[in-house]
């Protein structure tokens, strides 16, 4: 039997290990990914076992990391790049947006860019500035990139496998405050498609859509709501580009109410896209406007304020109540 109970960080580690093991073209690159194993130890032990030629400590330059990963991909490698924290991806933004995302189309399909960019993201770990952000919308708007985020150990393992196998650039957002949450990983079960949403809990009265770190909060909210006699369905989005609108639509046609929850600021966030499109698809089904719960239009606050800033159980249930009140 190949079922193990693993923390999310370890599940990713195992998935990277397997990829390194099975495909000699897979490389790990990033700051401190070698001996240290990354600041979150996600690449722990990999350099020791696969060598400095496969697990590469890079100079401290994100544009350089992504830019050289593109070059390596052009040479036939499959680099898996680590950006140390969400707030440090921006020096690489130009390479990601103008080169990585567009080069396949620029070449009319003649070259492929199988690059995975791993980004530990989100807040809740009491960190200093730039270490707690959720910039997924800034990538999802850009054609040519695929954007995913697991919420469970199993998804962490399998989605990483699939991301590495994908011939397109994938930005893999890792919910850093869930790194230590354990879950079962079956390393042999064939997973569903990378970009399909998952109904994480069935319910009848309202649909909550969330991804990454907020899935857990929504599950807790649903448990609390149940005690009040409200039945919430939870869709774990898993992929922010593409978005599996069909699964959300099916759920909303049943529950007739939708609340989207994410850590990222609401303004121009992924909730907006989901609200707009689901409202279009389910116009005659919706009993209430799609409501959004997320970050405010402010810089991510200092750690002592993050509990107030981050959507918690109460903020989610507040939105649920507001929706149900329509």
């Amino acid at each position, binding site marked *: 039997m190949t079922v193990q109970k693993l923390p999310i960080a370890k599940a990713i580690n195992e998935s990277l290990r397997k990829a390194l093991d099975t495909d000699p073209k897979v490389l790990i690159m990033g700051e401190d990914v070698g001996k240290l194993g990354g600041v979150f130890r996600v690449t722990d032990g990999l350099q020791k076992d696969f060598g400095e030629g496969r697990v590469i400590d890079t100079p401290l330059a994100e544009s*350089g990391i992504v830019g050289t990963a593109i*070059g390596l991909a*052009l040479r036939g490698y499959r680099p898996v790049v680590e950006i140390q924290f969400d707030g440090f991806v921006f020096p690489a933004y130009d390479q990601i947006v103008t080169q990585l995302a567009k080069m396949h189309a620029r070449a009319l399909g003649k070259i492929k860019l199988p690059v995975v960019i791993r980004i530990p993201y989100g807040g809740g770990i009491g960190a200093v500035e730039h270490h707690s952000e959720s910039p997924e919308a800034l990538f999802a708007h850009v054609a040519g990139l695929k954007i995913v985020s697991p919420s469970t150990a199993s998804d962490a393992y399998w989605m990483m496998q699939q991301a590495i196998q994908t011939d397109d650039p994938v930005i893999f957002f890792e919910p850093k405050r869930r790194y230590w949450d354990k879950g079962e990983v079956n390393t042999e079960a064939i997973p569903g498609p990378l970009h399909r949403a998952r109904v994480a809990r069935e319910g009848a009265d309202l649909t909550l859509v969330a991804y990454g770190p907020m899935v857990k909060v929504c599950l807790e909210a649903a448990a609390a709501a149940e005690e009040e006699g409200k039945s919430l369905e939870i869709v774990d989005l898993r992929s922010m580009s593409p978005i599996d609108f069909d699964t959300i639509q099916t759920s909303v046609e049943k529950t007739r109410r939708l609340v989207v929850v994410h850590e990222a600021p609401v303004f121009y966030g992924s909730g907006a896209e989901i609200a707009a499109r689901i409202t279009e698809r389910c116009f005659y*089904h919706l009993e209430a406007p799609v409501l959004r719960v997320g970050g405010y239009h402010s810089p991510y606050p200092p750690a002592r304020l993050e509990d107030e800033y981050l959507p918690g159980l109460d903020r989610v249930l507040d939105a649920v109540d507001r929706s149900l009140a329509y």
Partner: protein
Amino acid sequence: MTVESTAAARKPRRSSGTKRASAKRTPQPQSSEPPLVQLLSPEGERVEHPDYQIDLTAEELRGLHRDMVLTRRFDAEATALQRQGELGLWASLLGQEAAQIGSGRALRDDDYVFPTYREHGVAWCRGVDPTNLLGMFRGVNHGGWDPNSNNFHLYTIVIGSQTLHATGYAMGVAKDGADSAVIAYFGDGASSQGDVAESFTFSAVYNAPVVFFCQNNQWAISEPTEKQTRVPLYQRAQGYGFPGVRVDGNDVLACLAVTRSALERARRGEGPTLVEAFTYRMGAHTTSDDPTKYRADEEREAWEAKDPILRLRRYLEREGHADEAFFTALDEESETLGKRVREVVRAMPDPDPMAIFDHVYADGHTLVDEERAQFAAYQASFVDADPAADAAIAAAGVTGVAGGAGGAGASGGAGVHEGDR
């Protein structure tokens, strides 16, 4: 179009000690001027350099001349085609033929090139059909040739980005244990971009087999090189731990020799080299540019005297390496090339609108599929009488004009606006 492979590029670097009759040792430029590797004076005289020897046959020399002449002819044709409205834009390499042909002919087939948007001469050396370069300037694609068929990457417009791609590619070459090398082209303006500096860092740290070939044509659109640097650009390499050399960019022999030496160094596993080819942008930045706004005619005139093609021609004639028949035949070949380019471009069809949705992803994306289908249905809605249109609407799976529950209404109502398209 086949491109004559200049065999010289395969010769070992130090072939023999024999000197050409005309070779003489000229003093290197004074210390106030940065040292400049030159093997052919503007007057077409061979000069020697202690570090760079080259010994080409008459045929090889004629080959270089032919490359430069045909490249210039192609470039002129492209400029003309832009004036005629066949291209939206053209970035001329006029004046930079020696830098491009010299460096381009130093490459082996298995080397890999990362160009900017102006390396038409290098593309020529790689055997890329020049008409392929015109698609993006005509606006029918963003490049679109297969980089791997000639080891010539797509043109990169975002200044400096490609230097990192080249470095990464070279890191891969080293990993593969191959003995080929990579060359990255960039301009004097590009030298200011952080990406270029990062490519220096990465290539030095990983000892990547890459040659950075900077064509310092002294202008970045309207800005002279003084706006980018206080010191000659080749000096930058030293601070990153690898050699830099300045070469006369209008001297095809020197460009060939210096690039070849740098490539060999890379192959030997000794890491990167920065070559600064000191040259001049004889024309406008692009056909959209008007250099009279910012630079004096005299500057251009002074550089005309250093013309790279004239220089080699003088040498060929002086040495008797080429006769009148050669030049006449080359003129004819040029005209044939021009004519062919003209014809191919004029016949180049506009892409199918559906191409908007092609190759956005290699492995597909549901939203692209959905938008493709909607677009097809929308397009089809304009041809009311055509039964295929209704089929397309149906196939797209969008609901009818009534906008049924759960579906976005289709575009049936739009037909009335057909006349406005």
